[in-house]
């Protein structure tokens, strides 16, 4: 069952305020893979993510997430689904008044019948996995941006969600911290079997972690390529895809 789809988009359109940002999206994410949503700034990567994490309703077509049709699901179904996904926001979005440990423990308090000591133990274990044991009692404002992001991943995985969404996890991190973060994603993926959907435009990161990727294009308002990064670089003839994967400017000769 390694290749069955956990997320499927069929002719889907995403956007907000009545304006579609991307249309005709057709791709699926397989269980257990690290799937990257890539593309230039403003191409709608984050809109896809906001749709998949159920904060925006799809504007058309079909979006299936772990067996739930997002366009037709009831409020209760969406709420149940939300407990099966973990989300790391670009800013980390840790609760500022709670320590890192309390942040990770919060979903456990709300959704499990574990005793308080057990919740604490689980939360500590999650923080240990992301390498933050020593900082468990610190407030988010007392740790670095990279550490906040690590804590946010620990919180996203607190309930052992089968799917984790990461929004620009390495944006704003130095190259070494960024590489460490990629290692963390890879190890969590192999250790826990979590499916990762990562929104990013950082090529080194994509090359390190992506099993497969989709590239979105702002001008054509749709996904222009889907596949493994190396496969796309070697085989895809689309000029925009080549420009993206080879860091070339689209102005001048390659303009379409």
């Amino acid at each position: 069952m390694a290749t069955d789809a956990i997320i499927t988009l069929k002719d889907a359109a995403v956007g907000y305020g009545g304006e579609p940002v991307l249309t005709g999206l057709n791709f699926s994410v397989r269980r257990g893979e690290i799937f990257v949503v890539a593309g230039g700034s403003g191409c709608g990567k984050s809109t896809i993510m906001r749709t998949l994490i159920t904060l925006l309703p799809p504007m058309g077509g079909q979006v299936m997430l772990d067996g739930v049709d997002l366009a037709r699901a009831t409020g209760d179904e969406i709420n149940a689904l939300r407990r099966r996904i973990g989300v790391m926001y670009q800013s980390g979005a840790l609760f500022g008044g709670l320590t890192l440990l309390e942040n990770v423990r919060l979903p456990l308090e709300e959704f499990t019948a574990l005793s308080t000591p057990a919740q604490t133990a689980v939360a500590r274990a999650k923080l240990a996995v992301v390498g933050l044991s020593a900082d468990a009692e610190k407030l988010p404002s007392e740790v670095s941006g990279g550490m906040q992001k690590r804590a946010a991943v620990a919180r996203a995985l607190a309930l052992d969600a089968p799917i984790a969404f990461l929004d620009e996890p390495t944006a704003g991190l130095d190259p070494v911290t960024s590489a460490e973060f990629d290692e963390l994603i890879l190890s969590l993926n192999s250790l826990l079997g979590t499916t990762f959907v990562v929104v990013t435009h950082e090529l080194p990161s994509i090359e390190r972690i992506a099993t497969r990727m989709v590239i979105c294009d702002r001008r054509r308002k749709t996904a222009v390529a889907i596949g493994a990064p190396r496969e796309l670089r070697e085989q895809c003839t689309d000029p925009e895809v080549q420009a993206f994967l080879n860091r070339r400017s689209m102005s001048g000769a390659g303009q379409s």
Partner: protein
Amino acid sequence: MAALWDGVVETIRQAPPRQAVIDMTKVSRVDGAGLAMLAEISRIIAAGGGTLRLEGAPAEAGRIVDQIAASALPPARQPVGAIEQIGCGVIGAANHLGDLVEFTGAVAISSRAALRAPGSVRWRDVLSIAARTGFDAVAVTCLLGFIIGFIIAFQTLPSFQTYGAGNMVAVVIGVAMVRELGPLITGVVLAGRSGSAFAAELGTMTVTNEIDALRTFGLDPVRFLVIPRMLAAMVTTPLLSLFCTFLGVLGGYAVLAGTGMSGAYFVQEVQSAIGVMDLLQGMVKAGVFALLVAGAGCASGLQTGAGPGAVGESATRAVVAGIVLVILSDGVMGWLFFLMGI
């Protein structure tokens, strides 16, 4: 540059040549304003059907000038007319009203859930918020109550004394503080201190995606953040109002003591005018103010938009809405209590 621009560009604009050559062989460097001027000249000449050639310019400079000249400028933004402004205002107000109805509904649903399962309320949060909205506000509320009681007694005393009814000031102070001013002052202090704080807290959480994070956890922000704040405010405000009332009456006595009135006589006079129902009425008012101020603060925080000024705007909106709601509801409740004969 300004003189050059006005001279050259205006001359060319008045009589655009069919063909023009600008000799740039002796130009060693060109800055942004220079490029803009060349592009402007090129545009004017092109509009008249002519062509411009840059003689001896580096290829890069020529390319950039062409790029600037060819870029289509969007039409300048038209100033918004009065009718359009009114329309935008109405649409904005309608959207705001819709949001408010949605918020009120969400609060009602969460309140019902909280009543059915009191264990689901985050009591620890209620306690810490109550400490901030209640305990931390005791000093300022008491101070304001004392000063206002003092001022009312001080201002009204001479008029009453003219008719030989100086002791009636005790009654005035008692009725005014217990039924009206105690709760009202507390409500206004609450709007200024806690309404704004709630809006800023929830607004910041909206801006930093913390509210989104709660939603994607499947946690309802209203149950999680709004209900504890409302509960905390509703528990502490009637108590604050009691303190404020007591200190206001005391402030009044501070003036009357100067006229030689004894404490026992003052208490007797106040008691003759005020009953338990009056005290209760004041506390009910304070509770309603708390509900409205906390609700307005939280609603405003959750509606925070994007950008650096958004949180500030939310806090301002919360204070203004809070004070307006306190005074409006005070009037409505005063009328209702009058109809009920209390």
